[in-house]
């Protein structure tokens, strides 16, 4: 392919990807009421955002949910990845395929199956149901991130630890966990972001008692334009950019 052509094509697509995001950021500082014209620089929408108590509450709820979902899915995911990597056991292939299917299935399929379960078992829709659902869809991503790291791992290290008399538990704690730490952190950050971003699953398994950010935004943007959403979107953008850079930094630094 022509070098010049391929470069200008890449530039064009990146422009298209980033223009809406830039527009959002610029408009979040717009003083105009209507949302389409430019009325000068202002922080009014940020003030409006933080003056809205329900909104602030939803932010805290979302953060807390993402923190706990990322932590639980990282715990289970790391242990699962270790088991898949280190042990041979019956049903290993099945376990692998199940995780793959969870990752590939359309979110809405997962969402209604979980709603059916929660209503049948009588789990009230709220924080706990959201937590269970979010951990379930984050889990495969954590497992994959950690597995990728483990596949490049020197197999002689755990053997050496064992020969030196370490039990499996001690070996895991002193050899394996430090080795997979970067992948563990990257998996945690990915889980955190997935949880914070989720709309589809949360629409089904969330309850009125525990309002989270995506659902609040959803109800706001369905009708018309709400300039507060520009401000909120900009904050979320900066936040996820920070998380992404952190995770890349951890991964790149660990490779040196």
């Amino acid at each position, binding site marked *: 392919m022509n070098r010049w052509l391929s470069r200008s094509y890449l530039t064009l697509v990146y422009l298209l990807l980033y223009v809406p995001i830039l527009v959002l950021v610029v408009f979040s500082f717009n003083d105009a009421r209507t949302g389409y014209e430019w009325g000068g620089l202002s922080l009014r929408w940020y003030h409006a955002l933080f003056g809205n108590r329900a909104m602030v509450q939803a932010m805290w709820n979302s953060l807390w949910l993402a923190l706990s979902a990322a932590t639980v899915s990282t715990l289970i995911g790391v242990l699962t990845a270790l088991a898949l990597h280190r042990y041979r056991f019956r049903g290993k292939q099945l376990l692998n395929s199940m995780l793959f299917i969870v990752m590939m299935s*359309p979110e809405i399929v997962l969402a209604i199956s979980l709603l059916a379960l929660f209503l049948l078992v009588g789990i009230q829709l709220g924080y706990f149901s959201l937590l269970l659902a979010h951990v379930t869809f984050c889990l495969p991503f954590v497992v994959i991130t950690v597995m990728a790291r483990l596949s490049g791992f020197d197999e002689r290290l755990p053997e050496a630890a064992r020969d030196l008399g370490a039990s499996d538990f001690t070996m895991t704690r002193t050899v394996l966990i430090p080795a997979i730490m970067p992948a563990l952190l990257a998996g945690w950050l990915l889980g955190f972001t997935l949880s914070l971003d989720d709309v589809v699953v949360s629409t089904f398994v969330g309850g009125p008692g525990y309002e989270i950010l995506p659902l609040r935004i959803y109800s706001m943007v369905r009708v018309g*334009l709400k300039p507060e959403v520009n401000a909120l979107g900009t904050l979320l953008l900066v936040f996820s950019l920070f998380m992404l850079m952190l995770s890349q930094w951890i991964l790149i630094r660990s490779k040196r």
Partner: protein
Amino acid sequence: MRMASGLQQPFRNAVLILVWSWLLLLVLVPNLLVIAASVMTRDAGSFLSLPLTLDAYRQLLNPLYLEVFLQSLYMAVMTTLVCLLIGYPFAWSLSLMGPRARILLIFLLIVPFWTNSLVRTYALKLILATNGLLNQGLMNLGLINEPLRLLYTEGAVIIGLVYLLLPFMILPLYSVFEDLRKELLMASHDLGAGPLATFVHVIIPLTLPGILAGVMLVLLPAMGLFFVPDILGGSRNLLVGNVIKNQFLDARNWPFGAAASIFLTLAMAFLMFAHRLSKRRIGEEGA
């Protein structure tokens, strides 16, 4: 690998029990429930009741819903095609860049993936609205006299879906282009094939697993992302996702919602199967 013995056994067992029970209770059982729900009768009080019936599936074939399904399929196929048309040359161009530039460009590609999809859909609304930026720009340039109706159209929904799903098409394509050996292209050239013949007979078959993986990652979500038509398409039932959501959450017609969701699952199984098959074929031909 050494088999577990002594102290290892309890640790191993504890981990396996934990992950298996999680997957059984929160993946297998719920899906069985959905299958069960799809063959039961709708009930106003407790959502579901006996007798067993295939009414929900029959309802899927009802012309009204069949139309929604076809419409949803059409939107998803269009989205996938647009993603493929943009993403294929994009991934190819990306694979030709230097190694350092590639890292940065891939990073730039996944930044949107980490950003809230609802907020990004909303950002498109700012651009596409009747007095939005695109119409303002076109009017200022004198290209149009009155604003075009862009928002609340099928086109707007497809633009929104493409915008959200494009990285999922590009990333698998990029990984096959990265593995594409340049010698094969040269060999094709030496054997007298023109650029078009090389593209059709060498490049397309070798990148087929990437194409299918991308199609799988775009086509299915494109049928389910109900919030995109809600925000950009007015409130019509444009996607299967909207139908499932309305039937489950608003109309409380569980059997029908469940049957529609099983339809999506079957579509996924079919695509996964096709993807495996194509990978195996390439493996055989390569060997």
